[in-house]
């Protein structure tokens, strides 16, 4: 109890789910019916044995809340928990550009596949498990198709391979000779031109259509699955899966044909979007051999900002329903947003791709009692339950109606928790917008998964947040890469979005930057943002591209490497605004937007400053100074905690239960371990990070 007061953690303040995977507890009986409906729909995808024929035409499940705070994201979290390792779960934040919608969805999908599965014993990434699953069945089909002479005698072993692909194919396989022989055999089949054609044909026999790219898919998946992490093959496979073009050495490492390297180096946003859709369709098709996908479109209030975004959302749902198999798509929304902003702007054909609404319910008196008691217990405050949940106080919230919104209840409980027992004392002050934003930053900081590159966030910053700054006109020039610009009569700043590291594409970007500079009337700057999870540009072995980039840098190209602090701030800003749109915070969207515009004014100033072209930036090109680089190096060194540090962390938290992160960092060796520490907390089932406005508090959960 004294700990709690010391660190100022209010057990009821966590009333917004920023990341559904964080959901651990749910009140028995609350919204069980909608959950069961979603589980039943999912069950229709997994009726037959693996490999399954592709299942198409499942409508998007429309989960509707009567207002904000009834548990939309919480329901998704419960669904994720229930489905466990039966589905690949993709949580989709709103996309910002209609012409890049599929690119955003694919990026989120590949980022998720690159994470370790939470619900599986397999220690590798989900993509590894996916690849093993596909390859195991294809290999088994090949053997059954006459590839081995005495099939009947080895049939039990083949069946075992089908049922336990991860155990047999993963490097952790206890039967090393079997594992090595099988992988060698499979690799030899993929290297043999006639065998690989036969293997590709087996996809079609199962109804899995990959637009003639069967061989490429096989080699990409094998390249990923059978190569160690951080290898050239894995990097190449991920590049291909993200719909980015491959370098020649990457092509060779995967042994794929040049024609299968189908992402153009010099491509328009629309072409990038098309290829993203093809990759996503391929992944979903191949999930016939593994497990279906679940795509969750949450925070849909954001789409209501423009008719174009609503139309793009409808078009994506339509394509998912009609053209992409093996997935359950869920769209959550508030009833009034759906009726006022989304539905009226959506074509009837798109509307027809949504299921009848699945309604969420409010919490009742008994469930409320249970939820509040659980929150107190989680913070070892069990002795305060009777005193806190006084019958008269709790009942007063249910006088008007027997069910109320969960967030409303938690809000009142949070107020009561902080209010001194003296009834005459003034009610707690409303938190300031500054403090609310600081809290949002710490929330992003506490969740490393929220810090990954997000083109939507960068687009939101450069297209939406900047509006109104210094009389800027936000333009959309018809350019391949620099398709967004800030324009003033005397100068222009253009932005390109590129997460890849293909040197030919970067040459094209640099060339376009130079063309922009030479064709403009005023001074020009062109900017490409990079985040710490992306590879540095230019690559270490680039020669010609480096020269072109240097040349472009002299004409205004800047590759801005955002620091992790900047990424957290930027991602938090979008999340804060999105929360305001969803009614998750006590501030109106306009108020939040006004605050953020002011807060980010120094950013706008910094990036809108156009230096004369005669002063090229000093190396490193990336625009980051020495201290930032040093910082990045320090971060890189502390990318993971050592076994000994993990032991210190666990024993300290187990003893203290609730501890300020600074205290833990002191024990681990300093601030530079912060990222690694938070990553460890995210992975550990008993650890939880609570974001506060001033700091992050770590908790040991029993």
């Amino acid at each position, binding site marked *: 109890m004294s700990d709690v007061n010391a660190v100022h953690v209010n057990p009821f303040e966590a009333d917004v789910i920023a990341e559904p995977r964080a959901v651990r507890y749910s009140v028995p009986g609350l919204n069980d019916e909608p959950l069961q409906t979603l589980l039943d729909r999912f*069950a229709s995808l997994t*009726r037959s044995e693996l490999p399954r024929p592709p299942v198409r035409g499942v409508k998007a499940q429309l989960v509707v809340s*009567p*207002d904000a705070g009834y548990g939309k994201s919480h329901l998704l979290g419960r669904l994720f928990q229930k489905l466990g390792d039966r589905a690949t779960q993709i949580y989709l934040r709103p996309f910002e550009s209609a012409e890049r919608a599929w690119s955003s969805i694919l990026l989120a999908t590949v980022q998720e596949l690159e994470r370790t599965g939470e619900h599986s014993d397999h220690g590798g990434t989900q993509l590894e498990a996916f690849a093993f699953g596909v390859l195991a069945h294809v290999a088994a089909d090949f053997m059954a198709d006459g590839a081995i002479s005495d099939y009947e005698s080895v049939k039990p072993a083949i069946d075992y391979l089908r049922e336990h692909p991860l155990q047999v194919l993963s490097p952790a396989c206890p039967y090393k000779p079997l594992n090595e022989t099988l992988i060698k055999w499979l690799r030899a089949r993929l290297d043999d031109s006639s065998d690989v054609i036969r293997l590709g044909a087996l996809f079609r026999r199962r109804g899995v259509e990959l637009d003639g790219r069967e061989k490429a898919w096989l080699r990409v998946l094998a390249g990923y699955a059978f190569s160690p992490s951080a290898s050239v093959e894995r990097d190449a496979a991920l590049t291909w899966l993200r719909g980015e073009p491959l370098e020649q050495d990457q092509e060779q490492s995967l042994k794929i044909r040049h024609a299968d390297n189908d992402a153009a180096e010099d491509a328009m946003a629309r072409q990038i979007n098309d290829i993203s859709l093809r990759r996503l369709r391929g992944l979903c098709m191949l999930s016939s051999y593994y497990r279906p996908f679940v795509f969750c479109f949450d925070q849909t209030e954001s789409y209501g900002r423009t008719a174009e975004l609503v139309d793009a959302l409808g078009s994506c749902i339509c394509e998912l329903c009609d053209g992409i198999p093996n997935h359950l798509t869920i769209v959550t929304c508030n009833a*009034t947003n759906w*009726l006022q902003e989304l*539905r009226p702007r959506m074509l009837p054909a798109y509307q027809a791709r949504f299921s009848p609404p699945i309604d969420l319910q409010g919490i009742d008196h008994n469930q409320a009692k249970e939820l509040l008691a659980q929150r107190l217990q989680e913070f070892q405050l069990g002795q305060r339950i009777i005193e806190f949940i006084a019958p008269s106080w709790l009942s007063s919230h249910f006088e008007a*109606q027997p069910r109320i919104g969960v967030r409303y209840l938690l809000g009142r409980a949070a107020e009561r928790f902080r209010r001194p027992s003296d009834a005459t004392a003034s009610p707690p002050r409303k938190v300031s917008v500054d403090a609310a934003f600081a809290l949002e930053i710490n929330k992003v900081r506490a969740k490393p998964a929220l810090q990954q590159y997000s083109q939507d966030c960068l687009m939101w910053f450069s297209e939406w947040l900047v509006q109104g700054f210094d009389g800027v006109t936000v333009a959309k020039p018809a350019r391949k890469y620099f398709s967004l610009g800030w324009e003033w009569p005397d100068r222009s700043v253009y932005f390109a979005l590129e997460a890849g590291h293909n040197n030919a594409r970067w040459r094209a970007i640099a060339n376009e930057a130079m063309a922009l500079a030479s064709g403009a009337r005023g001074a020009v700057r062109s900017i490409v943002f990079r985040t710490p999870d992306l590879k540095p540009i230019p690559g270490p072995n680039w020669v010609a591209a480096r020269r072109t980039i240097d040349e472009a840098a002299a004409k205004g190209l800047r590759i801005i490497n955002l620091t992790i602090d900047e990424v957290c701030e930027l991602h938090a800003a979008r999340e804060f605004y999105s929360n305001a749109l969803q009614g998750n915070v006590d501030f109106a969207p306009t108020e939040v937007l006004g605050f953020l515009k002011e807060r980010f004014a120094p950013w706008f100033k910094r990036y809108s400053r156009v230096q004369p072209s005669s002063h090229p930036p000093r190396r490193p090109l990336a625009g980051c100074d020495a201290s930032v680089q040093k910082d990045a190096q320090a971060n890189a060194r502390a990318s993971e905690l050592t076994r000994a540090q993990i032991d210190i962390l666990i024993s300290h938290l187990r003893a203290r239960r609730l501890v300020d992160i600074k205290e833990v960092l002191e024990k681990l060796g300093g601030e530079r371990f912060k990222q690694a520490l938070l990553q460890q907390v995210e992975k550990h089932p008993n650890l939880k990070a609570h974001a506060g406005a001033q700091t992050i508090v770590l908790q040991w959960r029993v």
Partner: protein
Amino acid sequence: MSGDTAIDVLARAGSQGLTPVDLAKALGISKACTSQVLRELKANGSARGPFRIGRSTRYFSATHAPSRQHVEDRIEEWLRNAGLKLTSLSDLEAIARPWPKAFFKDAISALKGEGAIVELRGPRKSRLYLHREPLLEQLRVEREGATGARELEDTTSSLSLDTVRSVYEALRAQQGGISAVTIYDLLKRMGSSKEELHRLLLDEAKSGRLTLHPASTVNFPSEVMEAGIRMEGQPYPFVTVVLKEVA
């Protein structure tokens, strides 16, 4: 044991449907297996149920499953044929007996909402029903407007949840099945006084037959907000209402 076999058996049973016990017998499987098969069939949309019909609980193949529309058609046909003779609620219940009970109240509400039938109050508040066609025939079509207005007055003076439900169902259908209907839309359609509707909604909310909700994430026009119910301690007025489904 396979889903296909079970669906064949259900299809053969047609509009009679089958109880889980009958289905288990027909398939020669245990009760637990039958539940599993039925769950799967329901999940993929090829079977519907359970529907409580009389004393038994039945399942149907999707093509033969009863629907509210069946009940509505039957009631409408009966009342049209009855002409000006009033039909009691219990008589209508008897007519709808072959269908699941759950559909009956909804069918009556929907028919009233569409204006296909008229509900009248008899002695001791008994409910009596009449089809609109014989009624209009009797009153002559040209007097429909005046009659409609008088009928509306009658409705407002005896505002009940049933009256609200019929309008609510029509509005809900219009907005694609979304349950949250604005109080403003209800008021507009019903023509009742705001105070009277608010009083009814608050009473019914208290007893759990409906729920009231704010709309904190949408900027409604002022008239929609003004039609809402303001309550002490609530940051936003309640502007939408969700009626609990009739069991």
